[in-house]
């Protein structure tokens, strides 16, 4: 390829890259919107995305949100799955705090919890990667690795016919991420930050998935509590588009999520 043609191509690339949408695009119809698909690994944001948005408004002290190792002796598979999800969110908090040791601790907990439901083999390598990235302060890589680890655990759950546990991992991660965010926003209320807590569609999705669980899982006392808690949270965070939650509502979200985290992980599970 000649230099001239390379430069022409380069110019076209740049032009194409910055050109705004010029084609006339009609709004989506109600049928198109209701027919849109949802894929958990794409449609549900990671705690990292949530925290990145908070960082644009405030610069919280993420290290204050760290929790000590919380692996319990519980043999309840739903509880282990929920707890595992909360630890994934803890990993993102530790990354925001740029606390390498805490990231390693959380990575170890994730592996230990995964062992409790028999899905550890394939994620041992992930645990090593998390440790290596933490050692080298590769925070951006850690965010991707944490999500990849979560997805690998879920994939293993699917392969061993534990699909119902996948939803519980997502629920645990969302509750812990929302708890952390509500603590941060409560401490320094700003309407722009409070608007980030408005996530009714995510809660709807998670509640729908919990509704679809087999009866033996749905009848678990902890799962029932979580489902009730999510419905309560749905009522709190479903404001009109563009309308932030009030300071009082953010505080209610903090209380509700803290209560759920205590049920999932035990009463010593919350940061001071």
């Amino acid at each position, binding site marked *: *390829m000649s230099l001239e043609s*390379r430069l022409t*191509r*380069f110019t076209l*690339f*740049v032009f*194409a*890259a*910055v*050109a*705004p*949408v010029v*084609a006339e*695009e009609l*709004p*989506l*119809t*109600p049928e*198109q*919107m209701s*027919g*849109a*698909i*949802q*894929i*958990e*690994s*794409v*449609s*549900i*944001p*990671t705690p*990292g*995305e*949530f925290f*990145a*948005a908070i960082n*644009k*408004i405030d610069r919280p002290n993420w290290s204050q949100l760290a929790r000590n190792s919380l692996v319990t002796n519980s043999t309840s598979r739903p509880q282990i799955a929920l707890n595992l999800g909360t630890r994934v969110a803890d990993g993102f908090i530790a990354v925001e705090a740029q606390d390498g040791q805490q990231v390693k601790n959380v990575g170890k907990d994730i592996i230990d919890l995964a062992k409790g439901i028999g899905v550890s083999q394939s994620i041992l390598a992930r645990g090593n990667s998390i440790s290596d990235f933490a050692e080298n302060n590769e925070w*951006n890589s850690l*965010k*991707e690795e944490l*999500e*990849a680890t979560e*997805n690998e655990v879920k994939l293993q759950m699917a392969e061993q016919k534990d699909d119902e546990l996948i939803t519980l991992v997502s629920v645990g991660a969302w509750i812990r991420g929302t708890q952390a965010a509500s603590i941060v926003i409560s401490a320094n209320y700003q309407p*722009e930050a409070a*608007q*980030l807590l*408005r*996530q*009714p*569609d*995510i809660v709807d999705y998670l509640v729908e998935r919990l509704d679809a669980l087999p009866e033996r899982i749905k009848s678990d006392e902890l799962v029932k509590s979580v489902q009730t808690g999510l419905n309560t949270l749905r009522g709190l965070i479903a404001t009109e*588009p*563009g309308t932030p939650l009030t300071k009082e509502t953010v505080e209610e979200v903090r209380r509700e999520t803290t209560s759920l985290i205590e049920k999932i992980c035990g009463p010593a599970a919350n940061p001071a």
Partner: protein
Amino acid sequence: MKFRSALLLATVVFTTASIDAQDAPAPAEAPTTSSVPGDAATNEAPARNAALELAGAFSNDGYKIRDGYWFSSATSDTAPIIEVNLFTGNEYWFCAAAVPSESRIAVTVYNELGELVDQQTYADGARFAAGVEPAASGKHFVKVTLVEGAKSDFCLVYCYK
């Protein structure tokens, strides 16, 4: 800021394209014109690789690539749509790649009312990216439209910062 990302992307893709033109392509993973449209088993890996390659250009500018991806098919009559949840303050690029490689697709992003949101676009053959900075947090829709061809498989990934 967007322009910087776009320029970076352009540079990376230009460099990649130049290298590809000079060196022998990797036939095992590269999308080929012999791929059978609609053959999901054949098309998923090359489509995902191409979408990730496109998203990878943004990671040099601080974007984090989501691990999840959406593999689907578009036809001249059907433009599939996926729901995503975005946060105000973050910047997003939705990157899609179609197989076969002569397909042309477009990616458009809408807010929860179904209205088109302001977006930057990038097109390179069978690959397309749309960049948005959401005005409001919440549900958004991403539509993949086939603009050339009768049917095409595609893979979509996204990155954020």
